[in-house]
């Protein structure tokens, strides 16, 4: 009888440990339940955070309110940065701007741009990529959960820029402990 009770207690303990191992943090629910309108609004909310200048208008809080449903988008943004369409639009803008600057330089020689067009485009493109990745990491930290943690941990294995990696490490430290 006593051994039966002991076995029952041991069984309960094993069950608890197993459950804890399986889901120490809540996983992201599938986002497939979003209506097209909800999905579009969620996308706009995420873009507003990824691109804001000072971000003083509640952009991060809005993404955080989206909760785990935003995690897959943020995780892939952390890995890859902006989508190809945004990169191409930005590249075209930088090329246009550089050429305007060189025209301006002809009339105002004291305003000399020292970078080549290629350097100019590469420099600001790299900043845009880092911006998206840093913002994604910070949002993952505030949303939290197992999937967010995994995305941040996996990002540390990627060849990211040093400042992006530093943000990822910082974000991991800020994740609430479970």
């Amino acid at each position, binding site marked *: 009888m006593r051994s039966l009770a002991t076995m029952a207690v041991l069984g309960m303990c094993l069950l608890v440990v197993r459950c804890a191992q399986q889901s120490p943090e809540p996983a992201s629910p*599938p*986002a*497939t*339940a*979003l209506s*097209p309108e909800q*999905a*579009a*609004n*969620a*996308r*706009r909310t*995420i*873009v*507003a955070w*990824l*691109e*804001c*200048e*000072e*971000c*003083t*208008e509640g952009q991060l809080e809005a993404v955080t309110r989206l909760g785990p*449903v*935003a995690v*897959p*988008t943020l995780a*892939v*943004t952390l890995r890859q940065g*902006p*989508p*190809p*369409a*945004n990169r*191409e*639009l*930005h590249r075209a803008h*930088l090329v*246009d*701007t550089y050429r*305007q*600057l060189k025209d*301006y*330089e002809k009339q*105002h020689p*004291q*305003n*000399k*741009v*020292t*970078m080549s067009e290629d350097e100019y485009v590469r*420099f*600001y493109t790299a*900043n*845009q990529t*880092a*911006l998206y990745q*840093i913002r994604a990491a910070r949002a993952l930290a505030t949303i939290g959960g197992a999937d967010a943690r995994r995305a941040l941990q996996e990002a540390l294995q990627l060849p990211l*820029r040093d*400042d992006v990696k530093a943000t990822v490490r910082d974000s991991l430290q800020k994740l609430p402990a479970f």
Partner: protein
Amino acid sequence: MVRHRIISALLLAGCPLFLTSPASAQRQIGPGAIYLRGSLCIELVDPFNPVKIPRVPVGCEVIDCCPGCPGPGPLVWELQVSGDAVEALMLRFENLPADRAQAISIRGNAKWIDRSTLRVGKGKTVLTGIPGDLKERAAIAEPRLVLDKAAISRMQLATYDALPTRPMSLSKSGLGEVDFSIEQRLGQIPVREFRGFVTWEKCELGGSGGASEDWIRLQNMTTDRATVLLDGRRNTGCVDDEVNRAQPDSGLGNVLSAASCNSEVVVLSQNRAMQLLTPVTTWTDQPTDTQFVNMTPVIQAPVTLWLVAPQTQAQANNDVVRANQFYNAMQCGIGLGPVTVNNAANNPNAQNLLNSTCANAANLNNQIGFTQNQLNVYYVNAAGGSRGWSCGNNTIIVAASIADNETLSHELGHALSLGHTNNVVGMPATNVMVTGGTNRNSITTGQCFRCNANSNSALNANGNRTGSTRACPDATTSAACPSLILDVLPK
């Protein structure tokens, strides 16, 4: 005379387009849409030149398209083109592989006119199989509005037939409008939107009037076509911010003595400072008056750059040149100069201030350096996750590692009294004061006015500009404050 004016208008080569954004052009559009909104001045439209519209990238706005989306794939484009004096929207695609273009299915009023250009007629058109999943370089569409030449000519003739009394008896707006949109969808889910809404306006075009006319004559001008905002009295009553262009003169028709009307002239131009003449007492009831305006060099705002983060000199230089070129091209009449550069990376305090927000502004000022009565810009590595800050007290911070090429221009706008425009109805998404975005290339005439005239602009606070000042918050439109969205193109 009428014929001469029409020919003059049509000979304004290049981009003879003149956009304003009056309140009449306001219309609610979908949230988050990238859009163009404004009013085209009919007198300056060349019906043979399609109207250029900002580029539209092909593909999703976030990398997996949306929360819950299956990821990038072929897209559906739903296009709507409607309105007056427009025949079609022409889309010229770059980076679109020929085989993918051929696979696009068209339902509605559109056809390919060559391998990369699609002509989309009025009405609703649905394109399916748009390649939103190109791995290397995404395709990008350059839209143009193809005008209905006969309709444009009819509107132009109607405008000029109103001479010689000059147009003031006619409504400035209401000639017509054009509405177009491109919604990119993955299945049923919108993944990127573009909206455009413009109205055809009758604007005042000066410069070739007869002797019996009042005039603005600009002295010491360049070849730029200046923008002249006129407050005064016409035979129809008071006018506020009536737009004219001067190169270097502008015939105004008959501006009457002011009586109880506000009477002033504002002139904005490239390579010259904004001129604000108030009150103007030149005008009499006779059409024989001339107001001379002495145009002066661009107002220079001295700036000290503090390079706290290492290897930021080339970037800071780029950004200053961009700000100078941008505020000049937009006719704001403002520049940064002289520029003093201090390499502060070896400052013993620099290491602790590499990630600084406005909370650290006093430390930056005290420990890195600060020049009184001028703008001080600190290039740090990071700025608390923001791209930049304008902290007041002549202190601007730029996060060198994530700033874009317009971050300094944006923060300078704050220092010159401007706020964000994301929620300002009628403001294009490309405005430099949008928080965010990566393709900011415009600032309105109403914003340029505030940068110069507002007493809380750094130009006035630092004594770079002399002359009368105003208190025109972004949201205030009055006889003293032009609408923030008032805009005139080309600059």
